[in-house]
């Protein structure tokens, strides 16, 4: 009986329960950087929702971490500071039909830990314009008190998600928007 009790305690201690961290408004930021024949452009938003269900203690040492989560970004809240450009971009992303950009996190591998920052490889999927693709990217995770901040960036091609790079008219000809964009984010979640 004593052995069973002892084993139970050991198992309980070893399998520390995963904790759910939820996104909170005002702390996060997602930026999409792009280029065109006229100038570089940028859209950004602070409206990044979702959750991360993760064993935060396991992030402190290298190895595989049990985790799952999702990140959602409403497309129409991506803003450039220029109304017309926003309209063009939202239309190109088929916003009325596909309102969200969704990341799904299914794997997390801690590669190294330095000064409290865990360098990880995250795996999962990304859905834009209703098209889902697998995604693996390097992220850095920092835990401060109840907060877990996930930062990273990844290149993407618009055409991979069925998005035709916008080509608005100018007197000198059409603007040519480059296919490749870079998505950078700092996603802050709170326990």
């Amino acid at each position, binding site marked *: 009986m004593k052995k069973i009790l002892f084993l139970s305690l050991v198992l309980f201690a070893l399998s520390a329960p995963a904790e759910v961290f939820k*996104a*909170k*408004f*005002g702390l996060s930021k997602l930026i999409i950087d792009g280029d065109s024949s006229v100038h570089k452009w940028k859209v950004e*938003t*602070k*409206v*990044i*929702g979702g959750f991360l269900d993760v064993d935060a203690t396991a992030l402190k040492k290298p190895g595989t971490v049990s985790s799952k989560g999702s990140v*959602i970004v*409403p497309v*129409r*809240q991506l*803003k*450039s*500071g*220029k*109304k017309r450009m*926003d309209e063009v971009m939202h239309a190109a992303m088929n916003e009325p039909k596909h309102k969200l950009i969704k990341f799904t996190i299914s794997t997390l591998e801690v590669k190294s830990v330095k000064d409290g920052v865990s360098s990880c490889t995250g795996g999962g999927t990304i859905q834009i314009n209703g098209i889902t693709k697998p995604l693996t990217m390097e992220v850095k995770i920092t835990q401060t008190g109840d907060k877990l901040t996930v930062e990273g960036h990844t290149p993407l091609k618009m055409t991979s998600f069925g998005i035709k790079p916008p080509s*608005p*008219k*100018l*007197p*000198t000809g059409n603007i040519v928007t480059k296919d490749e964009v870079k998505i950078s984010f700092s996603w802050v979640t709170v326990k």
Partner: protein
Amino acid sequence: MSNKKEDFNRRDFISSAGGSLAAMAAMMQAMEGRAQESEGKDTTRRTDDSTPPVKMGLIGYGPHGRDIARNLAQLPSAPLVAVSDNYGAMLRRSKREHPKSKGYENYQDLLKDKNVEGVIVATAPHDHKQIVIDALKAGKHVYCEAPLAHTLDDARAITQAALANPKQNFQPGLHFRSEPQRHFMFPFMRAGAIGKAVHARTQWHKKTSWRRVSPNATREKAINWRLNKEISPGLAGEIGMHQADLVNHLLKLTPVAVNGFGNTVQWRDGRQVPDTVNLVYEYENGFSLTQELTLSNSFDGEYEVMHGTNSAVMLRGTQAWMYKEADAPLIGWEVYARKMPHYGSPGVVLAAGATTLGKSGKKLYQESTFTQSPLFYSLEAFAYNSHQVKSAVEDFLDTFGEADADTLADYIADQLGETNSLLPAANAVQGYQANVIALKANEAVNTGKRIEITEKDLTV
């Protein structure tokens, strides 16, 4: 909403707009680009047929309500789906003129109509308070004609209700704040293009009695609220407020006192409200604003002039001109700009949406494309901004769940105000402050005394 856009300075102006010839040329090219892009479209609008519509309900179908309905008929983004008027003849008229709109005798029933998303309050100012509060409670976006109210207490109550409901767009009907020509002048004036602001003068001359007739004595008394001293904001509140607010907004100034003089010169029909009014506003920095308003003579119509140490700028209808002093420093681009003489002085044309870039088959210069009335642009902004607020709030709630009013207000200001996602329009606090200044001016006219405008008065 943030004041970021209001902190425009000379450096911002030079770096972003016409501080150099190259920048000015780029600005003109962008304008022409828009003109080309919008070929075949209605270029008098800033929205187009793809702009998501916000269904409107109109409360009050008097002359101004009818004007609003006519303007809405030209705005696909603001379909009029319901009208309310508690006077049967007006309600029947609305059904004749807008057969697709539902008619309600009681505004409460219009507010219960789930098809109505935005409500435009076009009743007399003394009826605004309860309607606005009920409309906000019913979850509607609200456009309240200015002045918001005939008393400071009512204006404050309306503003507080608007601030407590950030999920809904609230817009006071300060039309000039949304009118493209005047908005075009904003960075220009804030950058100090006129030098040190010295004085401003506004004029509104029109020969009209303000009196309305009805076979029903009770009705006649009700519709002539403008002539009743107890409830009328007077010429200062009904008309002068819009022009004074424009000057204060463009020059970022707030008056500290107002002196008024008024008399009934033409329309001696027993009315209690002067038909001719002169106002002098005082400011801390020595600046002054004078206003002339009359219902007795129409000569020279209406305009606003702002005088500075380097130049004067006149705004009139959908046009504006700059008259430079001989010793004013050269900005650069004005050398190439179109000039129009005004009593011997060359006026540099400042026109929103115009282009000076010559291309084959195109005129070197076009007049401003924004030729609709300020009311039209104010309603256009209300519909567009209501949709933006609605979308932003929906996305917030779907993403983060419910939040308190302060958090939502901060979010709206950050997500929409800071990202230039809204068409220009006055917010609740600006509407309140313009209302306070106008009521103080009316008080000055009615008492013949100098009336102070304190910080406390202007605080909601």
